[in-house]
């Protein structure tokens, strides 16, 4: 159990450090990427490229194993059908992301770092998720 928690903590720490180093906690950098007509800021494309350069080959080799290193089984979504709920959810998320430039990870790191924008954003995010979870039942 302790190894499971340590692994989860370490994985989270790598991701948190990555978000901070890559300026993804700075919503002006994210908005600079999303605004293709302004002074375009390509940083987010490099972040996604750097992440996928690691995750694409290594997910492939990890998922060829029979089980995760610390036991249990791989809990990977099995659904493959694109449906209206998925597209509607992604569209609503996109609108919110385009409004403020925060997605969930950077907003959480921003709260820990004491960014006032994130402190305003996060409670509304939690409320939105809670309500969507109730409606989806």
């Amino acid at each position: 159990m302790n190894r499971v928690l340590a692994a989860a903590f370490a994985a989270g720490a790598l991701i948190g450090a990555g978000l901070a180093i890559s300026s993804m906690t700075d919503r002006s950098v994210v908005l600079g990427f999303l605004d293709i007509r302004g002074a375009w800021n390509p940083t987010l494309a490099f972040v996604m490229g750097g992440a996928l350069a690691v995750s694409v080959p290594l997910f492939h080799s990890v998922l060829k194993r029979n089980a995760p290193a610390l036991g249990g089984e791989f809990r990977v979504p099995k659904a493959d059908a694109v449906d209206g709920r998925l597209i509607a959810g992604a569209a609503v998320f996109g609108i919110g992301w385009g409004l403020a430039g925060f997605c969930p990870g950077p907003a959480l790191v921003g709260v820990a770092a004491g960014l006032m924008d994130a402190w305003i954003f996060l409670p509304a995010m939690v409320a939105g998720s809670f309500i969507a979870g109730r409606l989806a039942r």
Partner: protein
Amino acid sequence: MSGWAGGLAGGALIGAGAVLLLGSIGRIAGISGIASGAIEGAAGDRAWRVAFLAGMMLAGALVLQFVPAPPRTQTGPAALLLVAGFLVGFGTRLGNGCTSGHGVCGLARLSRRSLAAVATFMGFAMVTTFVMRHVIGVPA
């Protein structure tokens, strides 16, 4: 580090974290799902989520002490941040994922659902930013 170098290095760390979580405990590093599950998920399935979020928030805040950090003071209208936060929470719950789950992990699994989700939220985000900045002219 800034710009492309910080982006690539940070992105690689994000990818490494996702690989570590999958390889060690078999879970997808989708931050919206981990966060909502940490609050509302089954009791026996919460501890790893809390550990993950603690690691992410502590390491992220620590690193921001050493790299150029965004301003701590409020930079956007509160109403806009609140509406945006609500939509991000609502949409990621409804669509089962955000930039990390669908973007970094879903695309790495070559998931059709995640590819459709990423194309949709990227498109809607770009249109929204365009409308806000160049049509309405509201600063975010």
